[in-house]
């Protein structure tokens, strides 16, 4: 037998174990060490920084506590920029703030709450989930002092998404505008298309395009495990535009059933629009197989002329293969291939579909509230936006905040136009699927919507099944 060889192997494996696990370092003491170094550095600098950063109010300085923040944003530029902004505050307030982003955040936060390992603060893209946790007693309501600071920073409309049963429990950490249509101004100009002012004009424009042999829309609803959400966005836009905000709210709160004729009609309206001959180009061969981000290329190439998508769509333009090898220019520009946005119009008023991230706190501790206050402040928005633009190297960083009192110069012109759209909306509503219970909003609304788009069921069946799944 190969005894000696086996012994060598064993010895080798063992020594690798030691070295590797040592380098890998799960050890708590080590973490403490590094934290301690950070602390000392922080204490040195804190005097300089707190003077410039504290907006009038006095700055609380802690003694190096750690605040754990988690959320679904998990890659650059978002994570780098967020951590940079948190670090800046950590230095001022002598806190160690660690952000962890995770693709399975949605399941992990449930597991962590169940097991009692929840973070101090988590970012919820779905306010509905935040509300669930609050009602179960896991999320802490903002103390009055924090709440008043947050109310100073934000418009009441935005705070409504973090308000559960008249209590402020969450603060907006990021706000997105969804009712945007991306297009190429030069092509519109060349072909004589006008930016539509009403929804009817939008449909008429699309029909004109078809008549001229152009494909008006790019649509894709594939998004890995969240496949289907762009369809829910379209449905929500239609409900908001044609049934009004009251019906929208009733729908979200399940005061009318999901298979109410009004909702079924709007689901059908989306499908009818998309199924119009020549209306849609889908880069993946079919709407349900196309990743919504893959539509940047046909939009750039002029294969399709319009794409309704939120402001974070901008981060996909780095994928485009451009004629000159440079990156795509976004916003108003002389460049013939530049891409710009217009507001997705409505027949009455200017209703806006929004989304974003709401931060909620799991632990009632002073350092947690200090971080929450910071997250709601213009200083955080400015720092994150500045860092995110730098890291992304784009005109559109993918980050947007509607916080009041921020220095608008950190935003590029096109981003400023997003913020204008955000702040000028006559009616703003948060993405309905994010407000519904997750079985529906992150479950059947997506999956049945996908089946509907694929044509395997009709709108009534889809709505019936979604209604049946409502908990």
């Amino acid at each position, binding site marked *: 037998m190969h005894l000696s060889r086996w012994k060598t192997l064993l010895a080798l494996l063992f020594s690798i174990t030691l070295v590797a696990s040592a380098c890998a370092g799960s050890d708590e003491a080590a973490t403490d060490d590094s934290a301690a170094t950070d602390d000392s550095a922080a204490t040195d600098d804190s005097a300089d920084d707190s003077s410039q950063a504290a907006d009038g109010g006095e700055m609380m300085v802690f003694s190096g506590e750690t605040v754990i923040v988690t959320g679904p944003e998990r890659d650059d530029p978002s994570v780098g920029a967020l951590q940079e902004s948190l670090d800046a505050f950590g230095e001022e307030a002598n806190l160690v703030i660690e952000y962890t982003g*995770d*693709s399975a955040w949605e399941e992990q936060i449930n597991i962590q709450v169940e097991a009692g390992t929840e973070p101090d603060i988590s970012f919820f893209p779905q306010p509905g989930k935040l509300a669930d946790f609050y009602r179960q007693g896991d999320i802490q309501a903002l103390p009055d002092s924090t709440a008043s600071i947050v109310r100073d920073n934000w418009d009441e409309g935005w705070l409504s998404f973090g308000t559960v049963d008249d209590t402020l429990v969450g603060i907006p950490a990021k706000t997105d505008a969804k009712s945007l249509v991306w297009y190429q101004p030069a092509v519109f100009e060349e072909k004589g298309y006008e930016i539509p002012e009403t929804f009817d004009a939008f449909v008429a424009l699309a029909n004109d395009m078809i008549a001229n042999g152009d494909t008006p829309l790019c649509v894709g609803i594939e998004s*890995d495990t969240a496949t289907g959400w762009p369809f829910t966005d379209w449905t929500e836009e239609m409900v908001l535009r044609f049934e009004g905000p009251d019906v929208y709210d009733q729908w979200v709160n399940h005061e009318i059933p999901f298979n109410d004729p009004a909702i079924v009609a709007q689901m059908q309206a989306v499908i009818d629009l998309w199924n119009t001959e020549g209306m849609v180009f889908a880069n993946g061969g079919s709407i349900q197989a196309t990743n919504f981000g893959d539509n940047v290329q046909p939009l750039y190439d002029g294969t399709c002329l319009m794409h309704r998508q939120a402001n974070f769509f901008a*981060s996909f333009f780095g994928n485009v293969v451009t004629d000159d090898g440079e990156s795509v220019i976004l916003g108003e520009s002389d460049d013939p291939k530049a891409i710009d946005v217009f507001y997705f119009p409505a027949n009455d008023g200017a209703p806006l579909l929004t989304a974003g991230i709401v931060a909620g706190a799991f632990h009632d501790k002073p350092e947690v509230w200090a971080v929450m206050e910071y997250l709601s402040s213009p200083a955080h928005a400015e720092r994150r936006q500045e860092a995110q633009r730098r890291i992304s190297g784009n005109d559109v960083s993918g980050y947007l905040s509607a916080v009041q009192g921020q220095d608008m110069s950190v935003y590029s012109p096109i981003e400023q136009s997003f913020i204008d759209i955000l702040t000028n909306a006559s009616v703003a509503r948060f993405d309905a699927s994010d407000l519904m219970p997750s079985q529906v909003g992150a479950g059947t609304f997506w999956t049945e919507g996908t089946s509907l788009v694929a044509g395997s069921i009709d709108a009534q069946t889809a709505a019936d099944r979604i209604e049946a799944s409502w908990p």
Partner: protein
Amino acid sequence: MATPVINEVPGDADAALGNDGPPNDMRKGGTGSTTGARLHGLLTRVPLWFIVLIWAIPSLGLFINSFRDRQAQNQSGWWRVVPSDLTISNYDTVLSASSTASMTDSVLNSLGIAIPATIIPIAVAAFAAYGFAWIDFKGRNWLFIATISLLAIPLQVALLPLLKLYVGGAHVTVPFTERTLTLIPDWDLQGSLTAVWLTHTGFAMPFAIFLLHNYISGLPRDIFESARIDGADHFTIFTKLVLPLSVPVLAAFAIFQFLWAWNDYLIALTMIGSNADNFPTTIRVANLSGDFGRNAFLLPSAAFIQAFIPLIVFFSLQRFFVKGLLAGSVKG
């Protein structure tokens, strides 16, 4: 009674993954004539290499695309690669320490999980396999069957209970009273690599015992009997006889377990939770594609780095692999 094949035909076992050695000649052309033999050879080799080609294509695509930049990957398939396309910028990004996408730390974390998660279950399962195979005790069969049938448990069911154990320890409430007694104290393990490899150790048990028992129970009975007559105790027999004789199966299981622990995503994710410093490679790769998959172009290079070490381990230990697996399944 099962005869262990291992000790009788080691050459054959060695050749199972191919050593270009002489084959059993029965599978060579039986038709006799030269044309027939050639035809036969052709009909053997063409389908074989066709299948092998199909098996290789997906990995090849991954490898090539990992050297192409974002735009090239989006524009055309990897088979349209031109030398001027090639760049190591993707590797730069995923390996650079500054980037949040950095894989460097996570490789070490993965090793820190996979190596203890390989060695410790091997030890524990080897004891148990010997106990089940060669120590006579009441309820042995019953216990063994129960152990093996636990192979059927989907590991997802155990995630939350185990996490709770690591967070709060185990306590038992004495019946009909309010008193609780601590069985396992709170070791505060969540977020640590220890929690991950402990979990792997538990989940690995049924398969490890199954595999090792197959082999160890197949060792010739005479060895044990003569050793017992000489007055050797179980401990001596185990360390002096069984362990050296079981090297192949231990190595075979080591490969399996290392690959499993290295490639695991779910256990690591649950047990490490929000301690990003300890993320292993799989979580890094899964997070890399980013919000809505906007950074999907980094995936091929990251996936290649992720697969590199298990491939090395596998190819360096494969000669043991077949021998170890054989005993359980091949009965002469």
